[in-house]
């Protein structure tokens, strides 16, 4: 096989890890709270700016900046729920979409105000590994590994803990969980915090690879929504797998054409798949 094709495939897998992490977060929130956070990718942007500010401006250790980003975006997630979602939880879902859509513009404008539209980089240069003529960036490898760790941690939390079991249960029968002694509001807050923490982790991993600017969310946001819909909204496993399908289409499509065209191919395949499986490729 062509060595550049192989490299493209590997890069596709590595890109898929971070996208899968974000798809997990968005699907978790949708499955449990039944809302779509339109501004999800912009929470990632906030985390990336915090990493940049703590590490590149204030000179704190990178690990500390990463930990702070995860906690910070988790808190942002809780605030999004408390301030934006909770007051309109029972209103029509279009209102929730509009409200979180409004948050997207707010966050992008606020970031522009604070940091201007300049592209900023945290300036960490990780080495490129070369193996049998294939070049792989350590940053991507690390991002992929950390994304998998995050996914496994989420899985075991949902599978083994009482709160995790309640989170899975509430997605199946919202009305009855109160009879189990579960306070819905607590579960919603925990879910929002986890969704935020996943975005915070993704922010760390993306900050290693990309410049941060106020509109970086627009690069990933549409991709993540497409992945979630392709996997079946709310279906966490479906979204996880769909992330790798889409990233593979982008990477391999980019090999055969160009990077720009590869996104066109990805979205076109998405539309085509939606005609065949309107409820998502992995719909039950």
């Amino acid at each position: 096989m062509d060595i550049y094709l192989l490299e493209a495939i590997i890069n596709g897998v590595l890109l898929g890890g971070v996208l899968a992490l974000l798809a997990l977060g968005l699907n978790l929130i949708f499955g449990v709270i039944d809302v779509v956070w339109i501004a999800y990718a912009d929470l990632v942007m906030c985390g990336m700016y915090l990493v940049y500010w703590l590490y590149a401006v204030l000179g704190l250790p990178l690990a500390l900046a990463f930990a702070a980003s995860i906690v910070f975006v988790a808190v942002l997630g809780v605030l999004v729920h408390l301030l934006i979602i909770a007051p309109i939880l029972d209103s029509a879902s279009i209102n929730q979409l509009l409200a979180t859509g409004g948050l997207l513009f707010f966050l992008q404008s606020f970031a522009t105000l604070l940091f201007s539209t300049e592209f900023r980089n945290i300036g960490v240069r990780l080495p490129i590994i070369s193996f049998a003529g294939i070049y792989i960036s350590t940053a991507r490898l690390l991002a992929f590994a950390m994304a998998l760790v995050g996914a496994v941690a989420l899985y075991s939390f949902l599978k083994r803990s009482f709160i995790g079991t309640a989170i899975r249960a509430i997605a199946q029968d919202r009305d009855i969980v109160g009879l189990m002694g579960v306070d819905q509001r607590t579960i919603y807050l925990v879910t929002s915090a986890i969704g935020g923490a996943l975005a915070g982790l993704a922010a760390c991993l993306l900050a290693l690879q990309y410049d941060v600017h106020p509109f970086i969310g627009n690069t990933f946001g549409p991709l993540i929504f497409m992945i979630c819909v392709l996997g079946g909204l709310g279906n966490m496993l479906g979204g996880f797998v769909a992330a790798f399908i889409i990233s593979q289409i982008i990477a391999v499509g980019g090999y055969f054409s160009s990077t720009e065209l590869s996104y066109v191919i990805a979205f076109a395949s998405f539309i085509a798949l939606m005609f065949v499986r309107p409820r998502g490729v992995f719909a039950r």
Partner: protein
Amino acid sequence: MLSLAAVSAGYGSFRALFNVSLEVPHGQAVGVIGPNGAGKTTLLRLISGLVPLDSGDIRFEGHPVGALSAHRLVERGIAHVPENRRLFPRLTVEDNLRIGAFIPPARRHFAEQLERIYQLFPRLKDRRKQFAGTLSGGEQQMCAIGRALMSRPKLLLMDEPSAGLAPLVVEQVFDLVRRIRAEGLTVLIVEQNVQQVLDVVDHAYLLEVGSIRLSGTSAELKGNDFIRKSYMGL
């Protein structure tokens, strides 16, 4: 243990219960019988906090509980086996039981309580890794009762436990109610299966269009002409 005094409740502007008073003494089994749409399910949903109280007073162990939300009532010791069982179909049997033990005091005794439930229902142990949605009707009812018992309640509310089950399984369910009672648990059971429920309970109330029409010991109700004619087909 549980007492309702002149309670009214409903959904929005629709009133389902009028001026209902009822007593469930400690350690007893009490039945509420009545036709479809009489308000039996609403009564249980009211007690466990799923339906708001419009007027009247609900007391549990002497304390007013009418304003508490559902999850608080579980913490007080009321468990509810809902109508149609309402298991989480795509959780395993064991996960359904685990969520029954969600409140912190129950979490601490999770392992031993799980063992107790598996002793009570060996079938559930065989099927513990299966999705609850794949169980038979009788097994689902066992799982729903087991899930309610996982919170280690003082009072168990049961909504039509025999509904939709084969006669032999109905027999098993009522046997189980006897055993649960024998262990000292207080039970309030709502049923359309009048004949069999009167064999199990100490005391019963007849609920019709949202009001208590009759009440008495199960022996009295079994001998009551109106009940015999209208509900037992005798």
